[in-house]
């Protein structure tokens, strides 16, 4: 079983990207579980026809955190897209804290522990687990898939914007910090373009600086924005579009990827100085 984590800054499109990866992998005839690890709990929305599932944390709260009284079907939901897909997609959402109280990363920890407790990966006979994780706050909670070695492969969704590259460099630091104990490696960057000047060059050079690669570029596109409004992936909405092809290529590159590295780390000041020279070109 392959376990993959997709990290990225909030708003960068990591749920959009990871939903397409999940569908693309499942369509190879495989069983995939997509675990949304973002308090916003909308990671799996495109895979559930726009519906938001109950979160693991909400279900746990309702049962006073009595983990033994929870069954798998209360927290894992089969995708209705399975009818049009060669494989199977299962969805789970970690959830987050009650607004204003508690810890943001707790949902991630509880979700993964509950899934483990219920033996979800064996029960469902999964080939792939994909964690879609918020990367703004690389705290103990949100780094759990890396830290505990649940995810052996990490991909980071990034644009060429400086804040986004900074978030990416933080995620790289977490990977190199825990690689010894967890075995987690960086598989590459996924470029989600935002119409910035020299953006592909920025991302390719940045990847090089971090000792990794770019596994795919997703163009800036109105069509992709429609997915969110309509609650479906491009595989349903516009399977023949060039955007959908970009996702196919990306999924293929991830699936065939052999380049897993311990990323280098870079100081924010150096990153910023470099970034300024490249955007000015």
């Amino acid at each position: 079983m392959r376990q993959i984590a997709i990290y990225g800054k909030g708003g960068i499109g990591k749920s959009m990207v990871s939903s397409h990866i999940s569908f693309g992998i499942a369509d190879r005839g495989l069983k995939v579980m997509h675990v949304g690890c973002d308090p916003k709990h909308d990671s799996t929305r495109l895979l559930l026809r726009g519906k938001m599932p109950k979160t693991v944390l909400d279900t746990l709260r309702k049962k006073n955190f009595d983990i033994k009284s929870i069954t798998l079907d209360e927290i894992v939901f089969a995708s209705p897209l399975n009818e049009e897909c060669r494989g199977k997609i299962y969805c789970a959402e970690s959830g987050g804290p009650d607004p204003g109280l508690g810890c943001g990363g707790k949902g991630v920890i509880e979700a993964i522990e509950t899934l483990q407790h219920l033996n979800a990966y064996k029960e469902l006979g999964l080939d792939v687990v994909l964690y879609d994780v918020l990367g703004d706050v690389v705290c103990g909670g949100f780094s759990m898939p890396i830290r505990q070695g649940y995810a052996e492969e990490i991909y980071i969704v990034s644009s060429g914007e400086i804040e986004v590259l900074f978030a990416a460099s933080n995620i790289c630091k977490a990977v190199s910090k825990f690689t010894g104990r967890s075995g987690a490696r960086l598989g590459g960057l996924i470029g989600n373009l935002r119409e910035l000047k020299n953006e592909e060059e920025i991302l390719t050079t940045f990847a090089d600086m971090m000792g990794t690669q770019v596994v795919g570029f997703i163009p800036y596109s109105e069509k992709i924005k429609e997915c969110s409004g309509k609650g479906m992936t491009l595989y349903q909405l516009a399977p023949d579009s060039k955007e959908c092809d970009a996702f196919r290529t990306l999924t293929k590159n991830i699936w065939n990827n052999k380049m897993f590295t311990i990323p280098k780390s870079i100081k924010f000041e150096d990153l910023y100085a470099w970034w300024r020279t490249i955007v000015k070109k």
Partner: protein
Amino acid sequence: MRQLAIYGKGGIGKSTVAAHLSYALADQGLKVLQIGCSPKNDSTRSLLNDFPRTILDVLRGKEFDYDAVALSDIVYESPLTFKKGGKVYCAESGGPEPGVGCGGKGVVEAIETLTRLDVFTTLNPDFVLYDILGDVVCGGFSLPIRQGYAQETYVVTSGELEALYQVTNVSKAIKRFEGRSGSKLGGLIINLRRVKNELAIVKDFAEKIGTQIIGIIPYSQVVKECGGEGETVLKRAPDSEEAGIYRDICERILINKNLVIPTTIDFEDLYEWWLKYF
């Protein structure tokens, strides 16, 4: 002294809005303290032309010995010249070491350290602006609301579902701490992202939760370019339409008396409603 919290989803442009607001307030001859409460520590970049050392980094360097920290270690005055002798002071909370610890801890530590050092009486600012990540409204990131530091909260949003969701989370936190903190919602600042029907969406949404729209910022290459250069449009393009918009927002906040406890909406209902626009 008025204390304002500016919340927003990561990437929505809240630091840009906060920095412009601080700039515009200072241009009115006011003294402003802007506290960046996002682990990314770039809230005050366009005011300092640089990234300051974060409070959490300074504390780490001194092994969390608060008595060894001086105000000048963590608060930096902007080198920019403002009209009428205004001033901007900047501080950045910082965040956890990647992979360990708590994300909201920076916010908690930053505010506690600043208040221990009597920042408000020492600098005597007219305005304090907390620029806060709104993606994870946990105990840490909700501190300015919960403890009543910020009596007024403004949320930067677009018409995107995730951005509106984040507004409902901040609203829930305000409502939850209503009794003890006195913190209220002052309005929404729209940062347009070229979503279909975007203005109608956010206007309708503001009405639904019982608040107002304080300003509408167009999607703009000028703002993007200035951001890339690490500058505000108020400094780099003071005569642009965008600069005028930021000054208007500042004016409206200065006279704003419409502070409310917002109506809360569950995500499922928000989503059903939002879908109607497509």
